[in-house]
């Protein structure tokens, strides 16, 4: 049995060379960060080889077992079976209780291709064999392959089992017939025409009440040839085709559903989105992947609660030590349907509490945050948003506008402040409605979803380029977006050609909305808990939380407006304002540069080229327009036209040329550019549920980092904590596997993982010790926190 585990070895260390000492997200050193981002881009371009991902799925016990003992007895066949294609079927092995054979789907195999084989056990009536988790007793079948070099066997693909009661105990297994599918892949270099010998020793335990261990040796000779030969034979053998078709229909549905497992007093509650299963199932049953998670013999109650299906399970003996995953089988009128459920993220409430108290940091992880606390967190989160680098440029404009109207009366200022607050709240309300709408539709959306769309990123980059040009004085946009931002300060220039000069209050309103829009992706430490809470509660509470978030964000400016002393302390307008205005162009360009970097991570060099070309066309068009206007050209419309042409060109480049964001496997490899750039100091492996599960099965500690190129908190954490030599050393010493998931583009596996922790945004840092439940680290990391977090402090 060969296993393909693409593992790149232990974490290697390269000293961090970015020289940033303590740059948290709350410190708006934007231009400083951009220098780092540019370095990261350079690194990303240098290291663009994607890692090989492990395509094999499911941890399967088909390991080292050799068949010894007495030859099988040739008892009467237990049950009849149809005649299978002789050329693709092994000799039948008769044991006391089973008739066993190895069958290939086709007798012919092409080099570079694969064939599915099945170990078929026809079981004596009332007897049974076992699933990979046999339940209270028993043992799963094992297959030990003896294959020539060039032929590789995958893991057993286990079909959905039945619960089999044995007295007061329950086993998971199969009655009548158990079919174990395995894919065999042949190397492309295999000489055409040379037959392939497939040999296997299989052992299985078969029980009624008494249990008998049995085994058999199997041999199949497959011919090699082209695809057509295989197809013609396949058509001729209906019984074999039907067997494989039936076996594949008994497999769980592809994909993994994120569940949430929590401990309530003496019971386990498994929550799974109802949309993941067929409508109105008549029954539900959860098969745990491993012994110890649930009491197999206990009755399982279930009910529908809102958008979720809720299963009540009895905890097993090692509930905290084993992976919270399994199969959920729904019985429907059309037969059973099963999905894989992964709830590995969840920390049982009791353990979570202890951890939070120990670490003194992360109680916000608790998904059962009370409503007043959640609102408080949301409010604080909103306040912290003001300090986010990506909202700072907008606030800078705001402060500039404020400075130019020091003489306004209180009533006027109050109205402006309230208008700004209204803008922020309107944005959050809109977002909340959208979020809830999507939630209702069953879509798994993350908080940073706007910046996961490359087109959105590009449009934001264009916006910031234009804002920068305007601030720098290269172009004048009277009533464009810049005017909206500046509207409160009555604008730096006169009315623009569009004639839509907004009044001050409307400007304040739009500035609020804009500030909220750009701040949203920067998930501040408090937002994770408040938002995950919002996603799990009834819609009025969810909206209340988003409103509190918005209020927190608008509060500083509102207070500034209301507090005359603060307002009076602001300097009077003067020539310094123009200097400041021009200076503020650079944060705009910095933000644009950052957005272009995000775009590169999302779409690669082609996307960047398209984006930069678009920005060039847009800038040129605007410059031409400005030039015509100032030169009092006889063709004023030509200027406006050129700006329009520039805009259209930019949009065409954005919509038409921008490659679509990579998906699935591709996403993992394209995201690796960002990963590799960040991994200069501490090499991580791309996150996959399999990698996590297999490392945990080996007892190896794992550190999971979920990140995204557009998440500044994530990047700063990597700079100031995770890329530190001391951290890398500790990881190496403790043999910690560092798994990194990149959520720059939408990735269902990572969304599921986040949902497992009740989150819908990055960053999240989770440490899985060898024993015991996973431990969630805070969202703002320091070197000491990480080392302490993995128990080496």
């Amino acid at each position: 049995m060969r296993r393909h585990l693409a593992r790149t070895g232990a974490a290697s260390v390269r000293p961090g060379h970015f020289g940033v000492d303590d740059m948290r997200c709350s410190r708006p050193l934007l231009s400083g960060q951009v220098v780092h981002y540019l370095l990261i881009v350079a690194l990303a371009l240098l290291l663009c080889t994607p890692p090989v991902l492990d395509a094999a799925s499911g941890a399967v016990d088909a390991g080292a077992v050799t068949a010894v003992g007495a030859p099988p007895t040739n008892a009467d066949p237990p049950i009849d079976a149809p005649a299978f294609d002789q050329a693709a079927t092994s000799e039948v092995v008769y044991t006391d209780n089973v008739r066993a054979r190895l069958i290939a789907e086709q007798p012919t195999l092409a080099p570079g291709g694969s064939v599915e084989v099945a170990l078929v056990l026809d079981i004596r009536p009332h007897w049974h064999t076992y699933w990979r988790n046999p339940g209270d007793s028993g043992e799963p079948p094992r297959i030990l392959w003896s294959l020539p070099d060039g032929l590789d066997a995958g893991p057993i693909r286990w079909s959905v089992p039945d619960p089999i009661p044995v007295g007061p105990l329950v086993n998971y297994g199969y009655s009548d017939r158990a079919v174990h599918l395995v894919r065999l892949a042949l190397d492309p270099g295999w000489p055409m025409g040379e037959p392939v010998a497939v040999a296997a020793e299989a052992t299985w335990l078969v029980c009624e009440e008494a249990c008998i261990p049995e085994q058999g040796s199997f041999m199949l000779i497959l011919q090699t040839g082209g695809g057509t030969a295989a197809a013609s034979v396949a058509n001729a053998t209906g019984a074999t085709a039907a067997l494989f078709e039936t076996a594949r229909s008994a497999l769980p549905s592809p994909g993994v559903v994120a569940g949430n497992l929590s401990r309530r007093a003496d019971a386990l509650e498994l929550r799974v989105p109802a949309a993941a299963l067929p409508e109105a199932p008549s029954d539900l049953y959860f098969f745990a992947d491993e012994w110890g998670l649930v009491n197999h013999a206990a009755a399982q109650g279930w009910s529908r609660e809102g958008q979720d299906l809720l299963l009540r399970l009895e905890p097993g003996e090692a509930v905290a030590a084993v992976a919270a995953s399994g199969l959920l089988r729904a019985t429907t009128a059309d037969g059973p349907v099963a999905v894989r459920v992964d709830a590995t993220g969840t920390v049982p409430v009791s353990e979570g509490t202890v951890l939070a108290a120990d670490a003194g940091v992360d109680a916000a992880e608790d998904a059962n945050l009370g409503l007043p606390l959640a609102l408080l967190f949301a409010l604080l989160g909103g306040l912290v948003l003001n300090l986010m680098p990506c909202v700072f440029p907008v606030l800078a404009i705001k402060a500039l506008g404020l400075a130019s109207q020091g003489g306004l009366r209180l009533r006027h200022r109050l109205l402006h402040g309230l208008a700004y607050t209204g803008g922020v709240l309107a944005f959050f309300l809109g977002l909340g409605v959208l979020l809830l709408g999507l939630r209702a539709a069953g879509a798994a959306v993350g908080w940073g979803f706007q910046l996961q769309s490359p087109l959105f990123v590009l449009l934001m980059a264009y916006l910031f380029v234009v804002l920068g040009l305007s601030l720098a004085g290269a172009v004048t946009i009277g009533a464009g977006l810049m005017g909206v931002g500046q509207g409160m300060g009555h604008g730096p220039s006169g009315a623009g050609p569009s004639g839509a000069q907004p009044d001050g209050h409307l400007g304040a309103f739009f500035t609020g909305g804009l500030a909220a829009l750009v701040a949203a992706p920067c998930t501040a430490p408090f937002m994770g808990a408040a938002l995950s809470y919002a996603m799990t509660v009834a819609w009025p509470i969810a909206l209340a939380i988003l409103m509190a978030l918005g209020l927190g964000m608008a509060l500083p400016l509102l207070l500034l407006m209301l507090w005359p002393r603060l307002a009076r302390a602001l300097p009077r307008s003067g020539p310094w304002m123009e200097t400041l205005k021009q200076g503020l162009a650079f944060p705009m360009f910095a933000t644009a540069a950052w957005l272009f970097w995000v775009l590169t991570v999302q779409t690669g060099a082609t996307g960047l080229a398209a984006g930069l070309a678009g920005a060039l066309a847009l800038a040129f068009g605007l410059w031409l327009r400005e030039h015509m206007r100032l030169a009092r050209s006889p063709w004023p419309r030509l200027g406006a036209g050129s700006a329009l042409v520039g805009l259209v060109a930019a949009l065409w480049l954005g919509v038409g040329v921008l490659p679509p964001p990579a998906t699935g496997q591709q996403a993992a490899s394209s995201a690796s550019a960002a990963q590799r750039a960040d991994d200069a100091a501490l090499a991580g492996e791309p996150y996959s549920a399999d990698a996590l599960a297999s490392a945990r099965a080996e007892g190896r500690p794992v550190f999971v980092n979920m990140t995204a190129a557009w998440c500044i908190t994530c990047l700063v954490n990597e700079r100031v904590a995770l890329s530190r030599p001391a951290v890398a050393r500790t990881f190496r010493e403790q043999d910690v596997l560092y798994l990194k998931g990149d959520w720059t583009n939408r990735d269902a596996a990572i969304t599921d993982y986040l949902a497992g922790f009740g989150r819908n945004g990055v960053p999240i840092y989770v440490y899985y010790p060898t024993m015991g439940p996973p431990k969630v680290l805070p969202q703002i990391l320091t070197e000491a926190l990480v080392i302490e977090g993995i128990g080496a402090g």
Partner: protein
Amino acid sequence: MTLSRHIATAVAFSAALLTAGVASAAPEVGKAAPGFTGTDTAGKTWSLAELKGKPVILEWTNHDCPYVVKHYESGNMQALQREATEAGYVWLSVISSAPGKQGHVSGEQAEELTETRNAAPTAVLLDGEGSIGKAYGARTTPHMFVIDQDGTLAYMGGIDDKATTKLADVEGSENYVRLAMADLASGQPVANAVTRPYGCSVKY
């Protein structure tokens, strides 16, 4: 950061207040082992309460179960019984097979089995009605429980880490009962205190 620490501590504290200890009937490592009274092959009564002051090992067994056969054919179980009893343990083999089910034996048959297999338990308890087995949640044969001299359950689970019927797997396996005894002897908590019991189902 400081503020978040304060809030986190406050939340942790209030959550800790809500999370009260939960009593459970199932045996739990670190808690008092479930009490029992049983009769051995000679008609003698054994109760856990009377054994206080002595460490106890419970072994669920069924001589016809291939997993049990593996440990007796290899001499593994007998060696472990001798090792434990010499270290001062009371070793009780428990047969919970119901009358008419596989593994159910009379006192005479059980004694004969002990003799022919050269086994060395302190006593063999006949639990045909399954009351001891159900009190301990015994699921498989073998299923092992180690109770320290204070009556606290120190270990429950499989005999070792090789869940097979192959004799050859005994050598090189990690015997969890032996490890638990070593941990207890050195005054340490048992490292692997709960493992998966493997074997045939107990024939209640």
